[in-house]
């Protein structure tokens, strides 16, 4: 395994479609819930401990070798909003393409064949980490970082927020990212003996509602 592969996979420029998504930030900005760096931090913290935790646990379990189809069903069950389920599968499909081109791997090919329109993104993320020779902890870190990095970049574009302030928000959240990644790996490890029900099911109702509202807007900058 190579540690540098983690940097390749976690890089915001990894070409897997994330740039067109705000992680719910566009809806929150429009609703007046994010107006500056302090709100952004609160938003990211909420997302980290809910959607971020769930995604990280799914990714870690996939990286550890749990059955992708079972994890995909678990992801569906943990994503009430149809719009978010669609987004997650779309991003999963995009990530699958990028991962297969970057780390050619029979397991990835098999899942691509089984889910031609995309498996859930966190599941694909875990499989991509596995194909890259990375472990469950690495996959969890990619997921938690992505859960806050996406909205932070989006808010820089949406509010013309000072990019240094947005990056400082991410740095302040770093110790919490460590703790959430840790929790995710612990529950992912238990999947082998206890099944996917042991995975966290933390939900952020406002993110789910915001995603449904956002999906109906005729004019928007981000796809989600």
């Amino acid at each position, binding site marked *: 395994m190579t540690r540098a592969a983690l940097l390749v996979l976690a890089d915001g*420029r990894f070409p897997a*479609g994330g*740039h067109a998504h705000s992680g719910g930030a566009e809806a929150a900005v429009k609703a007046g819930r994010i107006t500056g760096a302090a709100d952004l931090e609160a938003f990211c913290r909420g997302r980290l401990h809910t959607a971020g935790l769930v995604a990280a646990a799914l990714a870690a379990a996939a990286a550890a070798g749990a059955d992708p189809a079972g994890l995909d069903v678990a992801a569906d069950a943990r994503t009430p909003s149809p719009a978010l389920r669609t987004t997650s599968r779309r991003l999963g499909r995009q990530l699958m393409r990028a991962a*297969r081109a970057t780390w050619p791997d029979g397991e990835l090919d098999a899942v691509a064949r089984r889910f031609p329109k995309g498996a859930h993104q966190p599941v694909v993320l875990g499989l991509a980490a596995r194909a890259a020779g990375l472990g469950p902890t690495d996959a969890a870190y990619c997921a938690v970082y992505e859960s806050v990095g996406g909205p932070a970049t989006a808010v820089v574009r949406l509010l013309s927020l000072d990019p240094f302030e947005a990056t400082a928000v991410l740095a302040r959240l770093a110790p919490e990212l460590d703790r959430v990644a840790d929790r995710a790996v612990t529950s992912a490890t238990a999947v082998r003996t206890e099944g996917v029900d042991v995975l966290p099911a933390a939900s952020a109702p406002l993110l789910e509602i915001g995603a449904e509202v956002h999906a109906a807007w005729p*004019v928007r*900058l981000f796809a989600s």
Partner: protein
Amino acid sequence: MHLDHSPHGPAALSADARRPDGSRRALRVGLGGPVGSGKTATVAALCRALRDRLSLAVVTNDIYTREDAEFLLREAVLPPERITAVETGACPHTAIRDDISANLEAVEDLEDEVGPLDLILVESGGDNLTATFSKGLVDAQIFVIDVAGGDDIPRKGGPGVTTADLLVVNKTDLAPYVGSDLARMAADAKAQRAGLPVVFQSLRSESGVADVAGWVRARLAAWTA
């Protein structure tokens, strides 16, 4: 690049010339250029000029609306199932150059759902003079500028003007009204493009999009040869 020729193989990765079932995919032509230069109008005119002889589809990349896709739908240049809009998250150039995954999915889905197709036009969201298409997404690209955007644009160059397979200088009918010197634009473009072709067009003139359509036909002939 990994290729899987089995009929039930996983999807293509990039600009592979063959589809997963082994058949040749459609030619993909990108149209980029600054906001308001006439990309959508050129796409509409191309569809009207080519649709009777060719099986066509269009992917639009709007920056924050579905306006370009809706224009094409309203003008009924193609049936609605042949037009797809990709959302670009405030960065139109990223979606055609740095992270092409959403556009690749759009062109592949069109080919799966309404194919077989001869040609897919991928229209970029209006951007700046540095926006170019990735070779992983399109086989050839057209850069559209217009005379009203300033007759110094060919001289300024930039990747779009200098490297596009075809440079289109649009709205030549406006030149006398905006004080643009077409001869100067032609000379500058020639100097910048090292022999690559340039078309001056006015979609309001009788010849309209004919030169660009001819160029596209020639690319298609080369692609299918």
